[in-house]
């Protein structure tokens, strides 16, 4: 990032009369308010979906049926997945984008503040639709987050609610993405060229394009599901001449890029944090941008690796196998650059940096197990086993979720004006990193030994590893209460944070006071 000639951080001069209380939050068009709303929503949903995960792990502590009915178990696994993806990770990253993108670009707000308000406020509606479906006759959806027919054609009323919720969440994502792309392309401060932007903005720009190119596909797929369910069509109903495998193709054409939607902003956050605490500029900035774009482009041509077992020509298997493996190249470039940034840096290990380093190490494990699963003959053996569960939790927990923790610790002082408690932060880190590995590492062995996923009961030989995983899950789950405590404590008070919270931090957001004033950069800063 180039030097800032002069930055403008304005106090709230009160030139708008803000409504108070709930109406302030309902009607707000301020990017900081909306960023906070996204983050609060994600935190609430994290605890809801986390509670479901603990119920799943409690049931799996012993073979046999212990605590929940098998159908309710299926509802838990389905809703855990849906909520964690659409209700936690995506809204949390949208929260970061809302807070940070205008601050990083020297823009006064997002390009379309009113649309920004709508994009957020339809999200809780979708959340309520999903959560209340537990109370309906037949319970919540139980057919897996992948929404495959025929289960999703046969289920009860909650399946319609879920389809509606997915439509709403998709609409929210598209509105958010249009806003982010437009803000980045049109609202940058003078002199801030694309190749001078912080990497977080680059990763979100590419993520937003991915969202716009995939969410309508998901919307199309679930619309067809809806008409199959309610209007007598047979898009995916084999009995009527439809093709359930077509749903899988359409779904994964959305859902593989979705994986990168869940991880590219994480790359951006980590790429902001590592240079700060290594006190060195990011190594290979341009290659990071090109690697991110390469990953995004490749993500569109790998979808069928999720469905090798449906049967496809060998040529197709080879194509999807090798194209999947190719993604390791730009991902490797990124990991290399993060390590090279740390190399001979003056490193300190505050909580954000600890989470960022854990991200680099543990996400790489998830990446490697992804490479293992890319090999078609291996995947056919490991498909729908706990190896897959271990793989994607290493990517999404120690990847996406850890980057969210890292980002919250990194920017919380800027958002609240207070420093968080470093000791509690470090406790949260160590309990999370130890707990997370105890939960998910044994799942590799369970999968290799053949334990299928999405079952409430299992054969006796899987008991020990399941018990270890359950103990880890409770350590990991309850340590998140510590995170909640740290966040609440920091919002309430604490040591005053300076404008440049971290010694090695670079960028426009560190030129405004902490907490960031309600209105910032009403006069655009000039970047040299």
């Amino acid at each position, binding site marked *: 990032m180039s030097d800032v000639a002069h930055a403008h951080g304005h106090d709230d001069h009160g030139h708008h009369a803000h409504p108070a209380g709930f109406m302030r939050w309902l009607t707000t068009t301020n990017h900081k308010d909306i960023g906070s709303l996204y983050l609060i929503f994600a935190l609430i949903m994290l605890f809801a979906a986390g509670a479901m995960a603990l119920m799943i792990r409690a049931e799996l502590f012993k073979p046999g049926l212990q605590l929940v009915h098998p159908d309710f178990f299926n509802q838990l696994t389905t809703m855990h997945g849906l909520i964690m993806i659409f209700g936690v990770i995506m809204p949390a990253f949208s929260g970061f984008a809302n807070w940070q993108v205008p601050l990083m670009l020297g823009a006064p707000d997002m390009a*379309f503040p009113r649309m920004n308000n709508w994009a957020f406020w339809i999200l809780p509606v979708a959340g309520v639709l999903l959560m209340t479906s537990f109370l309906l006759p037949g319970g919540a959806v139980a057919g897996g987050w992948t929404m495959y027919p025929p289960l999703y054609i046969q289920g009860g009323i909650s399946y319609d609610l879920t389809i509606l919720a997915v439509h709403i969440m998709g609409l929210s994502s598209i509105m958010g*993405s*249009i806003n982010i792309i437009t803000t980045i392309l*049109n609202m940058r401060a*003078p002199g801030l060229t694309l190749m001078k932007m912080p990497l977080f903005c680059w990763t979100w720009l590419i993520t937003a394009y991915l969202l716009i190119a995939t969410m*309508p596909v998901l919307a*199309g797929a679930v619309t067809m599901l809806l008409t199959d369910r309610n209007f007598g069509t047979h898009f995916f109903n084999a009995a009527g001449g439809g093709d359930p495998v077509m749903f899988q193709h359409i779904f994964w054409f959305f859902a593989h890029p979705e994986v990168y939607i869940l991880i590219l902003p994480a790359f951006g956050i980590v790429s902001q944090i590592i240079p700060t605490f290594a006190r060195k500029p990011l190594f290979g900035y341009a290659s990071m941008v090109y690697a991110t774009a390469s990953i995004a482009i490749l993500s569109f041509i790998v979808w069928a690796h999720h469905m090798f077992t449906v049967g496809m020509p060998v040529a197709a298997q080879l194509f999807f196998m090798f194209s999947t493996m190719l993604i390791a190249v730009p991902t490797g470039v990124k990991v290399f650059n993060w390590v090279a940034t740390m190399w001979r840096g003056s490193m300190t290990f505050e909580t954000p940096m600890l989470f960022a380093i854990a991200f680099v190490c543990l996400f790489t494990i998830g990446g490697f197990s992804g490479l293992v699963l890319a090999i078609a003959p291996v995947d056919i053996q490991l498909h729908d086993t706990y190896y897959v569960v271990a793989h994607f939790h290493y990517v999404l927990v120690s990847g996406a979720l850890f980057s969210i923790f890292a980002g919250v610790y990194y920017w919380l002082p800027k958002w609240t004006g207070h420093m968080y408690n470093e000791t509690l932060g470090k406790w949260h880190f160590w309990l999370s990193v130890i707990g997370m590995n105890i939960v998910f590492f044994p799942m590799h062995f369970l999968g290799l030994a053949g334990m299928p996923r999405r079952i409430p009961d299992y054969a006796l030989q899987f008991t020990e590893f399941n018990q270890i995983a359950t103990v880890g899950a409770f350590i990991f789950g309850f340590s998140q209460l510590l995170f909640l405590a740290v966040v609440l404590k920091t919002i309430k008070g604490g040591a005053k944070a300076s404008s440049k919270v971290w010694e090695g931090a670079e960028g426009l957001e560190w030129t405004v006071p902490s907490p960031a004033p309600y209105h910032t950069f009403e006069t655009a800063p000039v970047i040299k």
Partner: protein
Amino acid sequence: MSDAAMTDRRGRKYLTAALLALFALALFLFTLFNGLQ
């Protein structure tokens, strides 16, 4: 970049957004159309 150029770029935000929204809508309809094949 001059102030005029920045104002001009910010003024184009509606065009950018409209093109993106159009693309999303077209992709949605294209997916449905393919389902009908």
